[in-house]
């Protein structure tokens, strides 16, 4: 099956030459990506998560590149924010997918089922929620943690931010 046929039923959007975006339901995304891998999209450029707070969903995007077709195909899918579980693509893409998923697990708290190792990657002794989520007020956290009210030099940070 050629790659156009695989994605044709999901209404692909062609942004410009070599950029194609496609929305896929959560349940089918693993199969679609597996088929695309077989059709020649062998390079997983990146996996990303966007936190749509108002809609209550995480949007997971897979940026796939093919060395032969020379097209960047972005597969997007939405998963509920309160139950952020999605099937891992490690069986398809191997260790390169593992490291992207491990990072996203740490930063967004998305659980990738089937990933062998989701241990923390960048943060050590982290005491807050997953930091890239939109409902985590980053600046309040920084102010509490690093700037003290008593110190003369830090007062400006408190006064400006409190407004």
């Amino acid at each position: 099956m050629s790659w156009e046929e695989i994605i044709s039923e999901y209404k692909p959007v062609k942004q410009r030459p070599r950029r194609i975006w496609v929305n896929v339901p959560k349940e089918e995304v693993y199969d679609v990506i597996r088929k695309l891998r077989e059709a020649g999209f062998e390079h997983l450029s990146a996996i990303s998560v966007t936190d749509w707070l108002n809609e209550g969903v995480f949007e997971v995007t897979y940026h796939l590149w093919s060395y032969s077709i020379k097209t960047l195909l972005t597969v997007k899918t939405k998963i509920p924010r309160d139950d952020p579980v999605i099937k891992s693509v490690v069986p398809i893409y191997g260790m390169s997918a593992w490291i992207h998923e491990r990072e996203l697990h740490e930063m967004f708290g998305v659980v990738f089922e089937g990933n062998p190792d989701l241990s923390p990657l960048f943060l050590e002794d982290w005491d807050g929620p997953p930091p890239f989520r939109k409902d985590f007020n980053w600046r309040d956290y920084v102010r509490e943690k690093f700037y003290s009210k008593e110190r003369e030099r830090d007062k400006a940070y408190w006064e400006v931010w409190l407004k």
Partner: protein
Amino acid sequence: MVETEKKVMARKLGRLVRAVWIFNWFNSCGCTELLPVVSSRYDMERFGLIIVDNPKHADCLIITGYQTIKSIKRVVRIYNQMPDPKVVMALGSCPITGGMYWDSYNTIKRLSDYIPVHMYVPGCPPRPEAVFQAVGLLVEHVRKLKEEVSRK
């Protein structure tokens, strides 16, 4: 007693500034500007400054750039491993105020909260000349200290 201690310290520092062995705690920003200082363009070895591979041989710890929560622990540990007398020099704006990362959740905002810092070299990143100026100021400081001791 205090006078003799001062004298000993001045003598030690006087010998230190003639042969400063530097341990560079690589944090990328300042590191790229420290490379020209080491290499043939600016050549800091002509002032007796060399880079060593190991904090235990070093007299001067150069901290270049921002420190994250994870790396500051290692910095403290490296600082404790260095034998006395030791000097800490912080390169770049980030160790002073946090620099561009003043609202980042993972970088520390002021280096002197964690270890004593003897000299800050501002800049993003500081030019190689600034590093030399800093070392020059250090030498000048030691010279004044020696004069002060010998006058008494």
